[in-house]
């Protein structure tokens, strides 16, 4: 099962979904929320399809995925796994995304950055879910434990 702490960061933090082409050129896109099925170690990451063209080509080619999950506190994890498929998001998942995106808009605008510009990134709802079978999880919080593999 996915460790509780990783689930907490996955469901409440920000993320970046990495992939790579067959000729070893990496790519990534921002995630805008996630849902998970901890019992079968699968997770679905919410993204905007309009920004995911290269990612989807890469995933269809070789299926390898990495997802950076982080909190503003610097706590972070790296997930490695295989792409299972893409699907539409449920109403519940869109609601989850909306809450997280609103939180980030509020947090970043409180730092003095223009709210209307932050909404270009976080104000637009995701419209596709990328589901991954999680195979490995590593601590990525800066410090002596960074790179440590979590058993699950």
């Amino acid at each position, binding site marked *: 099962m996915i460790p509780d702490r990783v689930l907490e960061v996955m469901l409440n933090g920000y993320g970046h979904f990495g992939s*790579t082409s067959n000729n070893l050129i990496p790519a990534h896109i921002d995630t805008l929320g996630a849902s998970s099925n901890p019992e079968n170690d699968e997770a679905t990451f919410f993204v905007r399809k309009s920004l995911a063209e290269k990612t989807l080509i890469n995933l269809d080619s070789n299926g390898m995925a990495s997802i950076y999950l982080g909190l503003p506190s610097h706590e972070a994890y790296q997930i490695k796994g295989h792409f299972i498929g893409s699907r539409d998001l449920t109403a519940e998942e869109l609601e989850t995304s909306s809450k997280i995106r609103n939180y980030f808009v509020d947090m970043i605008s409180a730092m003095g950055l223009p709210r209307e510009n932050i909404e270009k990134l976080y104000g637009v709802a995701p419209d596709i879910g990328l589901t991954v079978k999680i195979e490995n999880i590593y601590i990525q919080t800066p410090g002596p434990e960074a790179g440590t593999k979590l058993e699950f």
Partner: protein
Amino acid sequence: MIQEKHQFAMNGMYPSTFSTCSKEGIPNTTVISQVWYVDEEHIALSFQFFSKTRRNISENPLGYLSIINPMTMDMYGLEIEFVRSETEGDLFDDMDMKLQAIASMSGMEDVFELKAADIYKVQNIKDINL
């Protein structure tokens, strides 16, 4: 290649995202605190830890970097290729000083240590239309 508008996204106010992959094609994605402008064809990234990113770059020099102008939230995607590491000189000293400032602000003075300034050639930059 690198224009003034891109340099505004390299001021360290908003984190950047960096992806690499191993020779087997396994990707790795991480967040970095700052990208340094070197010249119109090169940028530098700080090498702080013997990380998966560093191991990947030693196997496959190609990387993908996204940067954001914090005021406009304009995002840019850079395809980059590792060129060399520098462990002394003006660039290294500048990066070291700024890194310590960032570490101090985030309470991570004991964690952040600059081992080298890694220089990358920018192969391509694209506007990401959000």
